[in-house]
């Protein structure tokens, strides 16, 4: 311990203090501050870049999810549209069928009506023609018969035979 104290030089201590103090100040100003600042800004830069990459990845994922969603929606929409179209088609077909049926029914009815009226007219005409013909024949017969007495009697006889009383 005595040797230690004997070795201690106050002058050297003072020199060392001055050198160390000046060194610390110089190093702080010209070395450590710029170095640490540069390191910090570099580290922050790296961190920012990493964060940005992470964000981009997340955004990408979101975008993908969005795309997926859109695709799904589109598919669903298409599906719905197709379904709607099919329904509409069925409906249209059904309506058309119904209308056609109605139309047909109507036409048939009309045709029936026309047929009936035509038939009636034909009947009427036939009736009048037949009756005219009958009268004519009757006239002719009467004219002939009246000229021959025996014939008249024969005719009466014949007619009478035809008309069987029942």
């Amino acid at each position, binding site marked *: 311990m005595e040797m*230690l104290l004997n*070795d*201690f*030089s*106050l*002058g*050297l*201590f*003072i*020199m*060392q*203090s001055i*050198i*160390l103090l*000046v*060194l*610390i100040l*110089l*190093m*702080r100003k*010209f*070395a*450590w*501050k*710029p*170095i*640490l600042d*540069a*390191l910090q*800004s*570099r580290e922050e*830069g790296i961190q920012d870049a990493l964060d940005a990459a992470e964000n981009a990845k997340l955004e990408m994922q979101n975008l993908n999810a969005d795309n997926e969603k859109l695709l799904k929606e589109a598919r669903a929409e298409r599906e719905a549209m197709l379904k709607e179209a099919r329904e509409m088609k069925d409906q249209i077909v059904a309506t058309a069928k119904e209308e056609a049926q109605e139309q047909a029914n109507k036409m048939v009815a009309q045709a029936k009506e026309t047929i009936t009226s035509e038939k009636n007219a034909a009947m009427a005409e036939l009736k009048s023609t037949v009756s005219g013909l009958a009268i004519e024949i009757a006239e002719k017969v009467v004219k002939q018969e009246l000229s021959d007495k025996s014939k008249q009697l024969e005719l009466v006889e014949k007619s009478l035979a035809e008309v069987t009383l029942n």
Partner: protein
Amino acid sequence: MMIAKNSIKLVTTLLIALFSVATFAQHGDNHEEEAHDTHSTVGNPIDTKEEIKAYSEHHLKDSHDFIFYTDAATGEHKGFSLPVIVWTSKGLKTFMSSAFHHNDDGHVIVDKDGVKLTKIHSKIYELDANATEVTFDDKHHATNAHKVLDFSITKTVVGMLLASFLLLLGFTSLARGYKKGAIPTGFARVLEPLVIYVRDDIARPNIGEKKYRKYMGFLLTVFFFIWILNLLGLTPLGFNVTGNIAVTVCLALFTFFIVQFSGNKDYWQHIFWMPGVPVLMKIALIPIEVLGMLTKPFSLLIRLFANITAGHAVVMGLIAVAYTAKQSLGIAGGFGVSFFLTLFISLIEILVAFLQAFIFTMLSSLFIGMAVAEHDEH
């Protein structure tokens, strides 16, 4: 989890601290043995145990000139002298250390404008006004001279200036590199992870995310300063800066003052009026806590000093094996053993150089963290 991690760190640190003190103590014993067992052979090269011990001790001390090599045969020193700046009774005196002619035991007296100065064991002494020669008492203490305030550019100061220069050079270039681009190139690539290491593994976990930034200047500077000086100490230049008690005292005092000045209300309350204990206990705890306040930086300064000094002493001792074991192992054997042992210890010392810088910074940030921590209500 965080607490567990911290406590593991603390335990490791304590173990390292204990281990290092143990090494130091052991080394002290070796020294004593060496001192008891002395050879009487006196040769020109440094090869006796006493000479080696003196050489080793001399190396561990600060010196006023920078000697790379001494030619023992001619007594010529290869190196250069450094400026001596001393505050004497007659004001500031400056001259080159060559004026002492490498004399270190007070025989060469430099008369500088009426102030008689001499150097004894790497310390500059001023002789009393009427003395012409230093006289020593039986404990080899000078009786008619006193130490002066020595601001010399000693070897230690040169080391610190060199380390400061290297720090400024390296890290300002790193800082400039960021202006060109966010990714450093070249040597800056080595420095950047170290800065990040100090920030993320030392400062942030101990001080806390919100407050660490303020202390980064001190922590980074101290970490690299200690580390570079520790490594410089392993080079053949022979620096022993962080193994100098004045240097470690200064470093630890910086930590001490930073801790005290950044201490918040909770910190002072825990020292002077511990919450949650009875009043008598509170009073009993004050001296203990105040002592704790002082022992923290003290442990810092002793740990660093002891580790580095021990490392240097061990390396010097192992190099000396080459000379002391010459007779028993032969020249080749002695050099071989010395080489491999020194290589092994040097590798460990490289680890210790980093470890001590790390521990000093780590504990400093831990103490700062304790001072700025926001305590929850107990």
